[in-house]
């Protein structure tokens, strides 16, 4: 089935276009709309964005592939991202990653077989004063330790289960 934007998404895109003097400038915000709508940016999703903004598909792909927040393949419903940079490292980020990896049963970069969790190590999240930091979807979890990371996984599992995730 061909992908399509919902009427709400189309309204959002119209509002975005009004903010800029060029259509190209709307590309990054519209890619976010597409990612929220379809879960990740497949080739079809990028082609849809290109058609909607009347831009060459190559231009859309060029921008989409430059930025790390655009997922070119599906990620888990909970995208667990641990900062591995210097300030978080100094306060034990590696311990947090290894705990999350054990509890989730995946290595960094991996997704659980049920599609509930993706674990990833990422670069600085600009919350160094409360390191180590873990970002889950749109939420920061600061001051993480082995213990708090284990509790975080348990809490997310419960939520995933409640949504019928079967974790």
């Amino acid at each position: 089935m061909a992908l399509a934007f919902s009427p709400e998404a189309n309204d959002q895109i119209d509002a975005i276009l009004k903010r800029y003097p060029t259509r190209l400038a709307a590309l990054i915000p519209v890619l976010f709309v597409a990612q929220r709508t379809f879960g990740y940016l497949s080739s079809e999703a990028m082609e849809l964005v290109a058609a909607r903004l009347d831009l060459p598909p190559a231009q859309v792909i060029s921008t989409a592939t430059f930025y790390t927040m655009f997922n070119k393949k599906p990620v888990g419903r909970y995208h667990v991202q641990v900062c591995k940079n210097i300030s978080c490292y100094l306060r034990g980020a590696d311990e947090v990653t290894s705990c999350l990896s054990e509890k989730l049963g995946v290595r960094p970069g991996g997704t659980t077989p049920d599609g509930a969790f993706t674990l990833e190590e990422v670069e600085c999240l600009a919350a160094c004063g409360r390191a180590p930091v873990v970002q889950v979807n749109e939420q920061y979890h600061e001051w993480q330790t082995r213990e708090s990371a284990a509790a975080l996984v348990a809490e997310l599992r419960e939520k995933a289960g409640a949504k019928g995730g079967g974790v």
Partner: protein
Amino acid sequence: MAAVTTYDHLLRDKHGKDYRDLAVYRAAGGYRAVLKAKELGPEAVVGEMKKASVRGRGGAGFPAGIKWGFVPKDTDKPKYLVVNGDEGEPGTFKDNYFLSHDPHRLLEGCIICSHALGIETCYIYIRGEFFQQIATVERAIADCYKAGILGANSMGTGKRMDIHVHSGAGAYICGEETALLESLEGKPGQPRLKPPFPAVVGAFGCPTVINNVETLSTVPLIIEHGADWFLGLGVERDGGSRIVGVSGHVKRPGLFEVGVGANMKDIIYELAGGILEDRALKAVIPGGSSCPIMTPDEIDVPMTVDAVRDAGSMLGTCGIIVIAEGTCLVRCLQRISHFYAHESCGQCTPCREGTGWLARIVDDIEAGRGRQEDLDMLLNIADQIGGNTICALGDAAALPVLSFVKKFRADFQAHVDHKGCPHDQPLPGWTRP
């Protein structure tokens, strides 16, 4: 030890008030500086900014008032204000405070700047990971439109003023001002050659002012209290108070507002509580991860752009990273070098190839595969990257390598001699607050 004076002009988190709420912000005097600026007139506002000697808070330290002065007065093109909220330099977390807790301060600074320079449209570029902060700023903007602070007749000045948030999408390089403009325009964030400078050819080919979040957030204070007052908080040619962030191996990591020129050592030991487990200090990175590392005997220095430069490093963003004795500096450099390799935009060969090369050699040294000649090879490669690229990311990758290897060569030598990492002491422990 001298007592470090802290302020609550910018960092107002101890006030117990929710300044995100427009009514609360206004009750504390908010948005009055816009009207005062209108009375002063555009030229006087720019004059106050110059007199206040605000060095840009984003890391480069360029005087903000002078930057404002570069924007042409007579032009047929629209002019833009672009706010750099792409906070991403490891060890830096100060703009996060304004975006999370005091968004109206930033908006007020944007309005004053725009009115003074004849700008009607402002884009606030915020790093994409800051979902909550973006929502907070967007709510503040919506409240301003409802209150007539933004819109067709901004605060009754007869001037149109629009502010939009533009989300980044995960690229450190977009903190570089011309890469940020490319990103704002929808393109990959690859820095532009300068000149032309953004003040002449910036966003969408038009004259553009780009300032950091903290820089613009100081503007209402300067207009409200006057340039002399602001300048007096700091030192000559580097005025005001600013927010330093301390992270790493200290007992009380966090943000502190101090006058420009406060002593770095006192900030670490007094405000941030000293070193975890009362260990000895091994090293300090003073202003975000790209700044050359400093030894303990180099940190008794006032935090000004010039003084830290004279001490052989850079003030950068004032994001101080503290490293305790017992920490392996090869591992620390590994984190930093991989970061710059990951974030290189790929445009310039020395940076694209060199940053990865550096990271792989540091990996080899840490893993015990390092050869004696690798130490000088690191210095050689770093030397050839620095100064040979369009933007400063090449230097940002080279400076840590140069300073780590030169100042802490024994750490690197020990890895080569032991054919592996000789450090087995655990990182210092801390208790969750």
